[in-house]
């Protein structure tokens, strides 16, 4: 051991501010560098490949169009991406690595913002990978069945699907920010994504008054037209309203809680 390596008293000429891009880069790395993180990321590709193979094997020949592939690949994506985004936030508290992270970067909002940027980047890249897998699937699938190739997803439609998937992903982020605990946030997210739509459906069919309200509060209903590419008119307003209610407001409340909370 050399004492010189410590060299504690020296001019801190290189004391550069920690930049947002550097934090984002590190946070992106943290999404991959654990075993669970690695397999979660891999599962995006694995699920996309499995969906593609399943579509080729089981979809009726007449339905073997690009949209069928996109739909099949897109569904697991909307499940996995939010979990990745959620874990990137909650692990700082649940795994307690926040003790180090927040002492290296005291501005907690920066860390969260960096995680959001990193998650969105992962989401966008995943969508492009899915697109590529879908294209290959459609080429191979139609070659096997000797049917006509149907490219029935326009660029605009693909962008809408990306937007829809990113909204799903950000919902995971929001629940992570709000609860800061992996189990609690995951349960809340699954209640939101699996139980709530059914509940809204039952309410809408039994309570007439709720029927009018439903489009403004039911996020999964509001996001559906993004995925089939048919969104128009009022539906944009519904989408915006549900995004404010389920994404923006809870995230702002969560950020306030994070700023005041204790990191233990």
């Amino acid at each position, binding site marked *: *051991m050399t*004492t010189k*390596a*410590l*060299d*504690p*008293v*020296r001019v*801190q000429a*290189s*004391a*550069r*501010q*920690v930049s947002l891009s*550097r*934090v984002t*880069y*590190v946070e992106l*790395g*943290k999404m991959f*560098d*654990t*075993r*669970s*993180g690695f397999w979660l990321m891999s599962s995006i590709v694995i699920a996309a490949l499995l969906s593609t193979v399943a579509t080729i094997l089981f979809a009726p020949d007449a339905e073997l169009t690009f949209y069928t592939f996109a739909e099949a690949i897109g569904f697991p994506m909307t499940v996995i991406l939010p979990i990745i985004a959620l874990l990137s936030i909650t*692990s700082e508290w649940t*795994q*307690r*690595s*926040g*003790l*180090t*992270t*927040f*002492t*290296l*970067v*005291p*501005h907690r909002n920066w860390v969260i913002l960096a995680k959001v940027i990193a998650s969105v980047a992962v989401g966008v890249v995943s969508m492009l990978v899915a697109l590529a897998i879908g294209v290959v699937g459609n080429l191979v699938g139609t070659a096997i069945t000797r049917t006509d190739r149907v490219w029935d997803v326009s660029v605009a439609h693909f962008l809408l699907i990306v937007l829809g998937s990113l909204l799903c992903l950000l919902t995971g982020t929001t629940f992570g920010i709000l609860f800061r605990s992996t189990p609690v946030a995951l349960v809340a997210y699954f209640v939101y994504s699996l139980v709530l739509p059914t509940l809204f459906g039952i309410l809408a069919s039994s309570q007439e008054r709720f029927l009018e309200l439903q489009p403004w509060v039911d996020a999964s209903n509001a996001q559906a037209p993004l995925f089939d590419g048919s969104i128009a008119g009022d539906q944009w307003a519904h989408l915006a309203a549900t995004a404010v209610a389920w994404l923006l407001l809870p995230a702002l409340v969560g950020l306030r809680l994070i700023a*005041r909370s*204790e*990191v*233990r």
Partner: protein
Amino acid sequence: MITVDSLSKKYGGRTVVDNISFTARAGRVTGFLGPNGAGKSTSMRMMVGLTRPNSGNATISGRRFADLPNPGLEVGVMLDASAQHAGRTGREVLTLAQQMIGLPTRRVEEALDLVSLTETDANRRVGGYSLGMRQRLGIAVALIGRPSVLILDEPANGLDPAGIRWMRDLLRDYADDGGTVLLSSHLLHEIEVIADDIVMIGGGRIVSQGSLAELLRAAGSIVRAQDPDALERALSGSGFVTTRSEDGSLRSDADPTTVGLVARESYLALIELRTAEGGLEDVFLQLTSDTEREGRAA
């Protein structure tokens, strides 16, 4: 230098840290001593911005922690060696800190060397580390940015005697090079071998602070005389408090020189006269037993 100014923290109605003020000086190892639950960790968390104080503030080299442009270059922090993602290897944990601070990659190997973690250790997942290895990794993370201030919470926990000696040497060298070290412990003997200055805390309040030498000196003396009754009278006549123990020796709050002078004036023959070294320990044991009583009552 770390300056803590009237820091207080309440949880609900309970005051955990009660108006503490002290300075940890550069070039010295300051021991933050207190029984479990005395408020040491809460105080340290407030110093590095992880807990918001109800009042008061703490500065590091004159600036609040949140105002440091790149904290990793100025202050090395280890609050809990176990607080790492179990799925990362030691090297990955260090690499994240190196990247966040913006250091050259070779600092990772240098930091590993500094805490004597081997290549094999570094490539293992932290989940499989012993507590001692986690402490070493935590200290490596704290040291990687070559900070001038170190804040370590219970760093000797889980280290074997050789490990404690290693850490003492490391921190000694660090302080001798001009660094500021604040380390906490609930064990007196750990602090005694490492620290230059001591801040003793109990029930959220500072009960005693000063240099180790001062605090030991303040302990008074142990004295045995041919005529203990006469000596006891002489000492209390001079305004000193003495207590007689079963073996006939007297314990006085006067230092040995004063006791010797008092004895000479009264023409008393002494058999034994020495510094009472247990003074610090007595205060500390008193604190510990108080907290234990509170613990039992709760």
